[in-house]
């Protein structure tokens, strides 16, 4: 059963009458007998032939398994596709013996020597091939029991089929492609006076999605150029991401025109598939958008490289690249075209500010309310009760925070307010100013700050003043439209609102236990904190 040459290679006596596949012949104690060592192309005297840390006997397919002679799979079945090979002589003569041999294309080394079950008896067994590699296969005639000479009849199948093209691995292990221009694969073929399979080969290609690249001509000024990969806990926070250089970002400022319209642009999604010579027409791959704003479209889905065209709405777009046969890879594309439109939430928060002011005025005399330090204590040091200006309010959430500028301290989620991108601190200050007017704080004092802190940024002061003006009877639409234009014009200096770095994490509803915590945005907040308004 075992070729003499193989036995001699490992110092075994070709004359010794060993019983193949008997564990008593498991010289290295790896769980494989000599016959298995032969067909899995492993060293009978090395329990871990490929040195990947997994014993040979633990790698061979166990529904599924990994490849015991290839360290590239790291002993992990997830890195392999499992398939079944069948070979033998199914004809009426029941006369021939065959092997089905598989070689790694890049190195030419043996990886599988599948044997039939005896003369005229086809046999099947499962093997694991490593993803991202191409293999050649051939048939090798072994022997005949016919006195008049062999007839070379054979059967050769992969996954019980002689079909070529895209196939699916067993146990959902992934896709592979079979090429067989000569026709080695067959349910039954009658041979000739000589072995017509000699010198003929087929191919088995086991694809792997190495990486997904996302590029755009508009991402040139991004601090984090492509490529990126996969979803991560903090995928777009440069300070927290484990791979800060793997993000795709298109800044709002690079795709917006002077009228704040998002211009047409494309984002190219590309799947890098191994082995390198594999082409898209050989597989049943498909791109699909699995979540994200209802904006933009894929120009096609049936190739490795597609374009996502003309997204106009900011957010996290998630794509799925399905290579067929279970090989999938998920891509997250983030287009920071501003965050959620918050105007409705802000107006709802003004109603809460009305209620807040009414309750406060019922409790305090007007002169008490004029004390700015006193105001500050309500806003900042009371941690229970109603508060407004924070869209992720745990009790009555009014909006979902999508975006956050995290390039410095984590402060400053970005939203869209009446069509303009602004950090959420601006509407928060707007609501603050609104509430201050209602309880009798002068406009000048409101713009200066509440005592515990000083409002210094011009856009923050403008926001407080605008809120104050609305509470004083000003027209909301007019004032806010002017305000957001002003913010866009005057935040050039630090560019925060223009970066619009998104954060897809849900808000954490964090409530600080002290004013220090409240200001500790870099550690305390997944989403930025806003004003507590308690009575």
């Amino acid at each position, binding site marked *: 059963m075992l070729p003499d040459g193989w036995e001699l290679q490992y110092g075994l006596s070709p004359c010794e009458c060993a019983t193949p596949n008997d564990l008593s012949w498991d010289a290295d104690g790896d769980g494989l007998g000599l016959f298995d060592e032969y067909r899995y192309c492993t060293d009978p005297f090395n329990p871990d032939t490929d040195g990947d840390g997994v014993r040979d006997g633990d790698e061979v397919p166990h529904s599924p398994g990994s490849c015991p002679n290839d360290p590239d799979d790291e002993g992990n079945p997830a890195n392999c596709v499992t398939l079944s090979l069948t070979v033998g002589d199914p004809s009426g003569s029941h006369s021939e013996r065959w092997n089905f041999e598989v070689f790694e294309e890049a190195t030419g080394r043996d990886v599988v020597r599948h044997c039939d079950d005896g003369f005229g008896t086809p046999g099947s067994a499962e093997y694991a091939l490593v993803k991202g590699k191409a293999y050649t296969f051939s048939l090798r005639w072994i022997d005949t029991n016919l006195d008049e000479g062999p007839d070379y009849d054979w059967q050769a199948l992969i996954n019980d089929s002689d079909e070529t093209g895209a196939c699916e691995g067993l146990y959902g292990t992934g896709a592979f492609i079979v090429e067989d221009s000569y026709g080695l694969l067959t349910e039954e073929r009658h041979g000739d006076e000589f072995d017509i399979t000699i010198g003929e080969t087929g191919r088995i290609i086991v694809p792997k999605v190495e990486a997904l690249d996302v590029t755009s001509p508009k991402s040139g000024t991004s601090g984090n150029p492509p490529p990126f990969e996969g979803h991560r806990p903090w995928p777009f926070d440069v300070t927290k991401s484990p791979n800060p250089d793997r993000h795709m970002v298109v800044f709002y400022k690079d795709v917006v025109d002077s009228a704040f319209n998002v211009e047409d642009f494309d984002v190219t999604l590309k799947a890098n598939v191994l082995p390198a010579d594999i082409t898209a027409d050989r597989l049943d791959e498909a791109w699909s958008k699995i979540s994200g704003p209802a904006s933009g479209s894929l120009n096609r889905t049936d190739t490795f490289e597609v374009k996502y065209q003309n997204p106009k709405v900011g957010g996290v777009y998630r794509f799925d690249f399905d290579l067929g046969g279970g090989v999938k890879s998920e891509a997250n594309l983030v287009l920071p075209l501003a965050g959620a439109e918050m105007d409705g939430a802000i107006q709802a928060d003004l109603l809460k500010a009305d209620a807040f002011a009414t309750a406060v005025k019922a409790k305090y005399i007007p*002169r008490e309310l004029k004390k700015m*330090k006193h105001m500050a*204590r309500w806003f900042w040091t009371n941690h229970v009760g109603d508060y407004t200006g924070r869209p992720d309010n745990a009790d009555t959430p009014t909006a979902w925070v999508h975006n956050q500028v995290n390039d410095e301290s984590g402060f400053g989620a970005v939203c869209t307010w009446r069509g303009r991108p602004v950090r959420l601190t601006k509407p928060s200050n707007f609501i603050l100013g609104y509430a201050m007017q209602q309880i009798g704080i002068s406009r000048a004092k409101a713009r200066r700050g509440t005592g515990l802190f000083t409002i210094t940024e011009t856009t923050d002061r403008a926001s407080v003043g605008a809120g104050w003006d609305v509470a004083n009877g000003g027209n909301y639409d007019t004032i806010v439209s002017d305000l957001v234009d002003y913010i866009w014009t005057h935040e050039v200096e630090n560019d925060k609102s223009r970066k619009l770095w998104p954060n897809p994490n849900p808000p954490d509803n964090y409530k600080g236990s002290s004013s220090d915590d409240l200001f500790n945005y870099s550690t305390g907040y997944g989403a930025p904190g806003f004003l507590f308004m308690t009575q």
Partner: protein
Amino acid sequence: MKKMLIGFVLVICGGGVGLAQTNFYENVTNLWHQGYKTNVLAIADARLAVNSNDIAGLILKAEYHLAFCEDDQLSNAYLRVIQRADMITTTNFAKCWQEEGGRQDYFDILEDMVENPLTPQRMQQERLKGFISGKPLPDGYLIEALQKDGYFD
């Protein structure tokens, strides 16, 4: 009666003038928050009886008059606070008073009293709010600053 008794005990234990007291701020703000404003006034009067320029006593007395809309005494109390506070140069208090708007608050309220005088009827209504508990001492931060400066040591 119970409130008065508790307040009296606190005054004896910690609010006495001349006693070194590192938790003066906590005591008076807690009393105020719990609604024992009369007791806070008693502490102020006691301090002022010993030293008529005691800034803590002046502030607490002014707070009481503000809380109960006692306008006839408020302006004088405020002027005395301003006069005395302007002379204090210790770090924390001076910062709160001069830089963070404490002084301005006092002037704003004096100005408001002139520009927006309360009618007797309105004053009666507003005065009722003085009895509402659970409110912070508006100028507690000034007392806190004094304590940080060692004023009560």
